[in-house]
């Protein structure tokens, strides 16, 4: 199927910006943190060893910086159908405010903050900027992730 040369109108763009995902929740289990650290090949005791982590200023095991990707890359639905069905992750910009710890209950909401189209090597691409806000059970923002999602 040939891609169209242009797709996005300003009205569609304005309709998409501000779209939010339903909240996504994760109960953070210690075993899941350790499995995640093992999967990325990171043996840091802070993420793997409760006894060693207790002796640090964190006072116990914490999650590695990108652990919150365990909630998935949340992508709010676009309020229209698009002819582009393949998805690539373009990159992420994380800001961290609080460590994520075992037994935290994290709630994430993702919001589209920008949408643009571009023609490139992959043909027509629709590029969304999505800001995901992660809060813990104390309603503290633990992190935000600004992600670039490419549909082509």
């Amino acid at each position: 199927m040939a891609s169209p040369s242009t797709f996005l109108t300003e009205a569609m763009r304005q309709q998409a910006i501000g779209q939010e995902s339903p909240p996504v929740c994760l109960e953070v289990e210690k075993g899941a943190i350790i499995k995640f650290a093992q999967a990325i090949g990171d043996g840091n005791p802070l993420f793997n060893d409760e006894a060693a982590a207790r002796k640090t200023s964190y006072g116990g095991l914490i999650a590695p910086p990108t652990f919150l990707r365990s909630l998935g890359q949340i992508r709010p639905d676009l309020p229209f159908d698009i002819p582009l069905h393949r998805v690539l992750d373009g990159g992420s910009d994380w800001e961290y405010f609080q460590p994520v710890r075992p037994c935290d209950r994290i709630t994430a909401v993702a919001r589209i903050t920008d949408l643009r189209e571009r023609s490139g090597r992959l043909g027509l691409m629709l590029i969304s900027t999505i800001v995901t806000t992660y809060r813990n059970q104390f309603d503290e923002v633990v992190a935000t992730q600004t992600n670039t999602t490419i549909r082509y």
Partner: protein
Amino acid sequence: MAEQLYWEDVAEGMELPPLVKNPTTRQLVQYAGASGDFYEIHYALEYARGNGLEGVILHGALKNAFLGQLMTDWMGPQGALKRLSCQYRGMDLPGRPITGKGTVTRKYQQDGQFLVDCAIWLENAQGEKTTPGTATAALPSRSVGG
């Protein structure tokens, strides 16, 4: 536990200790399981090729994790990562080593915190920066009895 890095030990222009990673398809499957990202381009060869790719490719988020480790290994247990940013410019395939590298671009104090900004990236065996990024770390200072 790794040695602690103090803010006073850091100078602008300093290089971070490189982090060598040898990702395998097995690791991509392990990461798929741990992260819940089961998109087939990361472990099913035919599916990846059907999507116009040379082979299965690393999850962008796994490369993001490698850059996180580059920072947390360097910062030591009392450091706190404030910001971690990267862009996936080039694809990386399992079976090909990639190295995380970085340099300190700025050292400063702000709101009572002792901060350093770094330029960080993953590069392949050809020296191409497939995953450039930036990071900010807060480090303990000897001046406050850290």
